[in-house]
């Protein structure tokens, strides 16, 4: 129950932002968003309403978490195998 895709903010006017999904532009409403919004931010949007602000740094942090888990378990397995 969660289809929400991130889009980039192109402009903001009152309670509405114009956003771009990689070549498709549309409007979204901001009343359901807690954070402040600026042009260039990314928004997670569900049924035309923003629910979360995202930044590319968030994306990088996510990848870091994936890699950290894989590395720690891989290392563990390496240790177990040599035990």
């Amino acid at each position, binding site marked *: *129950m969660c*289809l929400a895709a991130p889009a980039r903010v192109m402009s903001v006017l009152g309670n509405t932002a114009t956003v771009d999904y990689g070549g498709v532009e*549309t409007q979204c409403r901001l009343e359901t968003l807690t954070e402040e919004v600026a042009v260039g931010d990314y928004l997670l949007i569900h049924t035309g309403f923003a629910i979360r602000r995202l930044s590319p740094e968030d994306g990088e942090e996510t990848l870091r978490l994936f890699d950290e888990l894989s590395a720690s378990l891989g290392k563990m397995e390496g240790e177990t195998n040599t035990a």
Partner: protein
Amino acid sequence: MMPSSSETRITQLHGAGGELMGQLLDRLILPKLGGAGTERIGLRALDDGATIACPSTADGELVLTTDSHVVKPIFFPGGDIGRLAAAGTINDLAVMGAQPIALTLAAIIEEGFPFANLERIIDSFASTIEEAGVQVICGDTKVMPAGDVDGILLNTTGLGIAPHAVSDADLRSGDRVLLTGPIGDHGMALLAAREEFRLTTRLKSDVAPIWTLVSPLLKLRDGAAVHAMKDPTRGGLAAALNEMARKSGKCIEITESAIPMRTTVRGLSDLLGISPLEVANEGKAILVVAAEAAADALHALQQHPLGVDAEIVGTVTDEYPNRVILDTEVGGRRFLDMPLGDPVPRIC
């Protein structure tokens, strides 16, 4: 050619076979479609039929195809019903391996239809068939009372000659599967254009005649390279691949990351929750090619303006007969099934 003020809209009289219909043909149809052709009795003769010289059996087989066109809206980003009708029929011939040699065009028009719109549609039709080097040799016009038909309907029949006609069913284990370009453009462009979605995009339909794109491949290896072809129209790539798998009894395995796709199509897919693999394409073909000829076939496609983004996307196997498998980008695997109906945007 400007219509007089009394002729800004189509009326019943235009379809009645009399003076006004003659004027419609003279002033709109013939100037755009009635170019000099090789027929002994051609469109300009406005006879009861048109003639074509019989080819000899050495030339191969005649291929006949017919389509009715009901697209709404009739003018859409990248094209209109005229271009769609012309390209659709030319492409059906093309994926049968047949050179188009003649088309028919029948129009059923609602009384009150704007003349200017009809002119636009005929213009589109004319320029599209010129790209493929084929002419309309006969046609028909009917005008229905207002409300009995929605705007305009077109029917086109195409005749082609194939030295060796190519079906959509001759898949052999080891064959490679090629796509001529990015998938999902037409279907997604039409969805995006729906007013109630309030979307703005530059995405256009890919509607285009592909005869000149595929014809060089039919000569590869003396005609032995291309085993099967299909154009992925309604139901998209998923429907077309499944039909090919079922008819041949083979399995088709596709690499998801190899499928060419525009960023905008992906964006629309994320936004609407509709898969680009299940929407129509109107200027693309699937080719199933002998493995040893695949690289040459790809190269040949990429030399043509409509084929610059062509890719090899899969292989024919025996693993799951009658099914299509997708190797997903992340490394998973799943069936790519026949779509069930018109895609509906979802929120969940």
